[in-house]
């Protein structure tokens, strides 16, 4: 799948939605709940379920960054599945603690 910056993806198996913040070159599969995510505008495939190995859940506002590929996505809607790239789990970045300045 082509993970362009700004492109939006949704989980095939739960409510999770993400937007790509930083893209990466190369063909990699972004998955949620153990199954490839689908483009935001497309229909979800039927009959799939969250894999037990990828059921940690996602929360809106969390940023997920992969050190290996440089891919970074922002979770825009939370769900029961967790994110992985080609089967490899990717973790959430630490939340920043900056004071309100606007």
């Amino acid at each position, binding site marked *: 799948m082509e993970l362009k910056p700004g492109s939006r993806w949704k989980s095939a198996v739960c409510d999770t939605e993400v937007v790509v*913040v930083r893209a990466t070159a190369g063909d990699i599969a972004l998955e949620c709940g153990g199954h490839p995510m689908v483009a935001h505008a497309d229909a979800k495939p039927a009959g799939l379920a969250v894999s037990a190995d990828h059921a940690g859940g996602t929360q809106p*506002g969390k940023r997920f960054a992969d050190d290996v590929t440089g891919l970074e996505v922002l979770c*825009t809607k939370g769900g029961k599945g967790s994110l992985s790239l080609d089967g490899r789990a990717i973790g959430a970045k630490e*939340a920043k603690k900056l*004071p*309100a*300045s*606007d």
Partner: protein
Amino acid sequence: MHTALLLEMAAGALGDRIATGSIDGGVSYDELAARARAGGHWLRGHAAANVVFVGLNGAALPTALFAAAETGRPFAPLNYRLPDAELRRLLARTAPSLAVVDDDMLARVEGVEGVTVVSRSAFETAAVDPANRDNEHPEPDRDIAVLLFTSGTTGDPKVAVLRHRHLASYVISTVEFMHAEEDEATLVSVPPYHIAGIAAILTSVYGGRRTVYLPTFTPEDWVSMAAAENVTHAMVVPTMLGRILEVLEKRGEALPALRALSYGGGRMPEPVIEKALRLLPNVDFVNAYGLTETSSTIAVLTADDHRAAIGSDDPAVRRRLGSVGRPLPSLELEIRDPDGAVLGPGQSGEVYVRGEQISGEYLHKKVLQDDGWFATNDAGWLDDDGYLFVEGRLDDVIVRGGENISPGEIEDVLRTHPQVADVAVFGVPDNEWGEKVACALVARDGHPSVDELAGWVKSRLRSTKTPEVWSFRDALPYNDTGKLLRRQLKAELAAAQPVAAA
């Protein structure tokens, strides 16, 4: 990543929370998102490249900003305080456009070619009209989010271009999603046409903090509204803070709900921030430094930094109260000399920044370097621990015999003199030193002597920073957004060279 998605996320996560207005009867995130979509649907019925906003602060502002984002059209808030002719000239530059204009300002902007004018009340009605709701539209291409006319102390105002990716990147890298407590409220009194006004909308929405608008700033109204709405957070410019403190003192008001005040947009005189820390001991003060072209804040002096500085005997720590803090972790910042060489701690030069929030772009003119660095045109230096001291616009810094002298520092000292009402310091050409320090001054309560004033500066700073040219005036020149026209004074005094100090 685009700004409409920030609101969509907020509505999806905490749709019932109040986004703008009073805790009772305000507009929820769900409702704000619905109004933005309805407003967007309605905007689509008008052929226009840009969506202009001419009006006071209020709930219509975030609605219009997000409605424009819904359609993928740039949002251009204009300075309604400008004289009519100037306002119309800026409006003409936005054509073909649709302008949402306060009802009582309509007559000022009628008949500008290529600009369709609609009243604010008509827009607000459209945003709540059931006929405009629940309409599906394909995702538009989104690129430019906001066009801001810079206040331009010289020449024609430039139009800064802020793309969706710049603003969205600023928000998601500096604000934790929905982190605000339910009782938090921010009071926005900076005008809609200022970058801080735009940033406040986006960061409050993403952080989940209720926004209360002051239609237009007066210190009395600010204090009254802060008290009435149990405001917990606010951003003010230094002049506003000074005036707010006077009202607090006069009324004996303590604003018990207030937790954090951020300030920026100009140099904060030390006596004002010291007084603020004294009068509001339980409030977190945050100094934020940023420019329109950098999507707002790029450096922050935190509340802990303020407390450490005010309580320190170490002069190096103490003086950080006059710094703008440290750069955001999400960007890079360097000080460079005129040849572009990177300077070390303690060395003054031009402030450069690089990062995803930096636009560094004007309409028809990109000033970002190929490697992504943006020259801010601000002069400054970093201390050993990375705290940034901004000395003012590069062109305003006085270079006397190789020494960089910040006009702001001298102005601050003169302003503490009881007989000085207003003051501007700048450099004028000098054969011996290259430049010498000059000063234009408005006196009050009589006429202080030049010797008295020179002695006042010399005893607090040093002799090289003591003005050598003095000009007494009835008033100083400011432009329509309240920026001092230092260059005008400089040109006048360079030509005249009046009374020299003994």
